């Protein structure tokens, strides 16, 4: 069986800057695969190229063997790929449940239904409540998404993506701006998500990445410099030299 997500020699330029330069990735079924590297390494650009928000200059993207290079985001979602954003993009002004139900209705192919009432789509409402239950947000279902605490907003961001029941979930820095305790909560959550979906994670919290990843790919300056298990990567002298060592050599 083909891997859920494969990227072959992906590249992207911004003017003269080569932001991503021949990146290869293979994410295996059911794994948490993390993409790490210093700021400006091109991680988010890789994400945006995979998820259809940027058109790659070269290279190919495959979802379970199907070539999906440069597909628009909505087609990728239908093909089983969902993403979250580094900057929280929940639908402010809508309730928590409606945020998630939008994803659920989309997944169930109801986006173009013009006649029946949205809340009468019981299958979508149920799916949305199920996701909120799983993430521990059910208590806040009726709250305005804008009024949530920052940590809960980050979780809602994940809930919206999970309502799409993706085969592959791309998560862009889910712990951005979170406290230590909240970060642990997200880490445990990602492991649970991996039971259903394959996860590609961009993350700065090295400790969490080492703790929850099955595989890690390290990027600097648009290129992959190492890939392997957390153990292998953390011992790799090139990685220590280029990145990890500079941050926190002591804990490794």
């Amino acid at each position, binding site marked *: 069986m083909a891997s859920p997500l494969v990227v072959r020699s992906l590249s992207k330029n911004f003017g003269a800057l080569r932001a991503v330069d021949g990146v290869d990735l293979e994410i295996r079924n059911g794994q948490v695969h993390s993409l790490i590297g210093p700021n400006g390494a091109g991680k988010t650009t890789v994400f945006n190229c995979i998820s259809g*928000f940027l058109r790659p200059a070269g290279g190919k993207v495959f979802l379970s063997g199907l070539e999906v290079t440069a597909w628009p*985001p909505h087609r990728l979602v239908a093909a089983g790929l969902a993403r979250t*954003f580094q900057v929280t993009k929940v*639908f402010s002004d809508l309730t928590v*449940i409606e945020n998630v139900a939008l994803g659920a209705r989309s997944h169930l192919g109801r986006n173009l239904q013009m006649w*029946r009432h949205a809340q009468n789509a019981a299958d979508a409402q149920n799916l949305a409540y199920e996701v909120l239950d799983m993430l521990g947000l059910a208590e806040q279902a*009726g709250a305005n998404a804008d009024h949530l605490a920052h940590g809960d907003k980050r979780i809602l961001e994940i809930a919206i993506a999970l309502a799409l029941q993706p085969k592959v979930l791309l998560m862009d820095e889910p712990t951005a701006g979170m406290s230590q305790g909240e970060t642990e909560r997200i880490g445990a959550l990602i492991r649970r998500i991996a039971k259903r979906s394959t996860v590609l994670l961009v993350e700065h919290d090295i400790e969490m990445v080492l703790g929850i990843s099955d595989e890690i790919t390290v990027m600097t300056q648009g290129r992959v410099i190492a890939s392997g298990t957390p153990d292998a990567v953390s011992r790799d002298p090139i990685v220590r030299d280029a990145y990890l060592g500079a941050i926190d050599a002591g804990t490794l």
Partner: protein
Amino acid sequence: MGRSRQIDEAEARKRPAAAMLVVVGAVLLALLPFVGVRPFTITLLTEALIFAIWAMSLDLMTGYTGMLTFGHAAAFGLGGYAAGYFAREVTSDFFTSLLIAELVILLVALPIGFVATRLSGAAFAIVSLCIAQVFFQIAVAWRSVTEGMDGLVGVPIPTLLGMTINTGPEFYVLTVLIAATVCLGLRRLVASPFGRTLGAIRLNEDRAAAIGINVRLHKWLVFVISWAIAGIGGTLMVFMKAGTTPMSLYWIESGNVLIMAIFGGLGTLFGPIIGAISFVFLRDELTTGFEVWQLAFGIVFVIVVLVFPSGLAGVASSAWMLLWRARS
């Protein structure tokens, strides 16, 4: 979880109530000519309800989907020209003329909307203005059909299943029925799964795309539906005035409908109705008192929008909330 389900159920109970409000409102409005309301007031109300249809169609595009348009006169004026020309040349039957107007609008709005909805924000607003100005120029220049600046005249009194719909109470009741149908239909549309995606697109286009919404397709559909509904208003207007002129396509008209919708409250559907009625009656009051009624109306407009950013509908809901608190 139980509590949130209750929220859903409470919402569900409110729904038929709001629909009943539309029906009761329509019945009350339709009765006005028969309880001694002056014919002149009925004429004003007819015009106001036609504008209300137009303003609601703008609300779908601008209020719900976030597509600001400075050219909504194009849809209203095009519907008027198409229906008026057809009625004069072929048949005075109201619904046949309306059907022809809608076909013309579809033919025009599908390609124009396809291109225009590639754009967002200010770019879309400017292009919509340009489109309407092109329509205006065509109406001035295409004399063999539009009769140029003189405008289309001699549109017959409409008939319905062979019965003549006379100007006055009869045409007014027809307008009330159509306006109520449009209002109920639009309310239903914005509450549907499709309608909810429009709010998602308005709030965050990237996020909407990332949950699998085909943003361009949805905006294109909204453009076409909005134009089609504006065309209903345009059709009614051309019969009411027995004709039309290129001024119906002019940018000032596009501005007027935008003002009605904002004044009443965008994203509410009821707001634009209130806005259209206020606009027509204020204009009537102010033109008799002031030379420069636009100035006076502008001042009222600015005050309402400054104090109540969500328009007159916002005033109404604030008052309702106050009453509610006072009671409990």
